[in-house]
């Protein structure tokens, strides 16, 4: 991590700035998943927990978006579940010979939904349904999120694509995931 720390710090600062503009989403999961996909592509999924932790810490301290109480849960959703889902699907899609753009769109949308699935599951664990237990609660939360988050996931995928293209067009920046993407 030490070798690229200035790049990592810039990515984190960038994600912070982008997410600071967005309204925090529902259910106390204060950070928007915008940036999860971008961060994963830029820095790779391995460092995303650290980046996500720092970004969320600064959101709590500098912009008063969200609180520390949900930090642990959010690091799991935004720092682990989302990035790995994005990464795996991206690799898989490219392996299957899908073009760059469709692969990124799919991966971003999937990562975004995985983030919310994770949040729903955490919420379900915290507030199980009196009758049906965790599973029923999960379905309920997931249904609420699906309605609100599906359109966001789509917009986010398109946005990620154009941002990445702008970056690649306008400079020869090589970052973990981006490097692989630019080379093909």
């Amino acid at each position, binding site marked *: *991590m*030490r070798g690229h*720390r*200035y*790049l*990592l*710090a*810039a*990515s*984190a*600062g*960038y994600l*912070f*700035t*982008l997410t600071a503009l967005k309204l*925090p989403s*529902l*259910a*106390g999961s*204060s950070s928007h998943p915008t940036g999860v996909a971008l961060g994963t592509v*830029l820095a790779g999924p391995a460092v995303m927990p*650290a980046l996500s*932790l*720092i*970004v969320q*810490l*600064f959101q*709590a*301290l*500098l*912009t*008063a*978006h*969200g*609180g*520390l*109480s949900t930090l642990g849960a959010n690091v799991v959703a935004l720092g682990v579940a989302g990035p790995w889902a994005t990464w795996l699907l991206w690799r898989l899609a490219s392996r299957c010979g899908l073009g760059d753009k469709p692969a990124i769109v799919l991966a971003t949308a999937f990562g975004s939904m995985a983030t919310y699935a994770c949040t729903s599951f955490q*919420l*379900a664990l915290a*507030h199980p*349904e009196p009758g049906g237990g965790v599973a029923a*609660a999960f379905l*309920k*939360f997931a249904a*609420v*999120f699906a309605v609100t988050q599906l359109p966001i996931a789509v*917009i986010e995928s*398109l*946005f990620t*694509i*154009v*941002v*990445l*293209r*702008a*970056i690649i*067009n*306008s*400079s020869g*920046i090589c970052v973990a995931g981006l490097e692989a993407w630019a080379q093909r």
Partner: protein
Amino acid sequence: MHVHAPLDHIAFSNAWRTRSPIDKMTFGGGLLLLASVLPAMPWSAAIFAAAATATLAGARIPVRAWGRFLAPQIGFLSAAALPLILGAGWERAAAVWMRGVAAAACMTLLAMTTPVPDLLLAARRARVPAVLVELAFLVYRLIVSIWELFERLRLGLDLRLRGGKPSLHAASLSAGNLLTRSIQKARRVERGASLRGLEGFPMLTPRARTSRAFLVSAVALQASLLAAAILFRSRFPW
């Protein structure tokens, strides 16, 4: 940045600026802990009152600034309570909401009285891994610059759009430019740091006064809240 990130500006200029971060964290952190363990009704209200008094009377932060930061957080918490009502029912949602508001007041107290770097220094002394703390210092340093870059690009975009709404295309071009320039900035700062021979962050500890009286009264307040909660636990069960 101070025009656009007033929270940071206030953290650097309030009446508690020179109070030791340990004092502030003991006070705010202790209350935060109580808010998450004690029954929401009525103890969250008491914790909220304590945090509000400390922020407004202690650190002498203007009510308007405080309200401006707390109000959106309460708004988010209320929005968050909606799916909870559907999923878990009224009472749980209300309890979660109250707890959230109290916790938000504690966090706001901490965020408005302690600059982020002071907290990071405290974290380093508390043996949080150096790699993480150093990265956080760098992120803070770069956020300041990137935020300024963002403001400038937003103005530039606004001028180009001539009053119209940004299309997805224009917005993402602008976002791409922001990332490119953020990374260029990071490279320049990296060079600046290497010019000065800096690898880590050998940081001067800010002069801060630790007050035993403050610490004692903070702990006493928290202890009495806890004692009251235990005493009245038949009326307000956990």
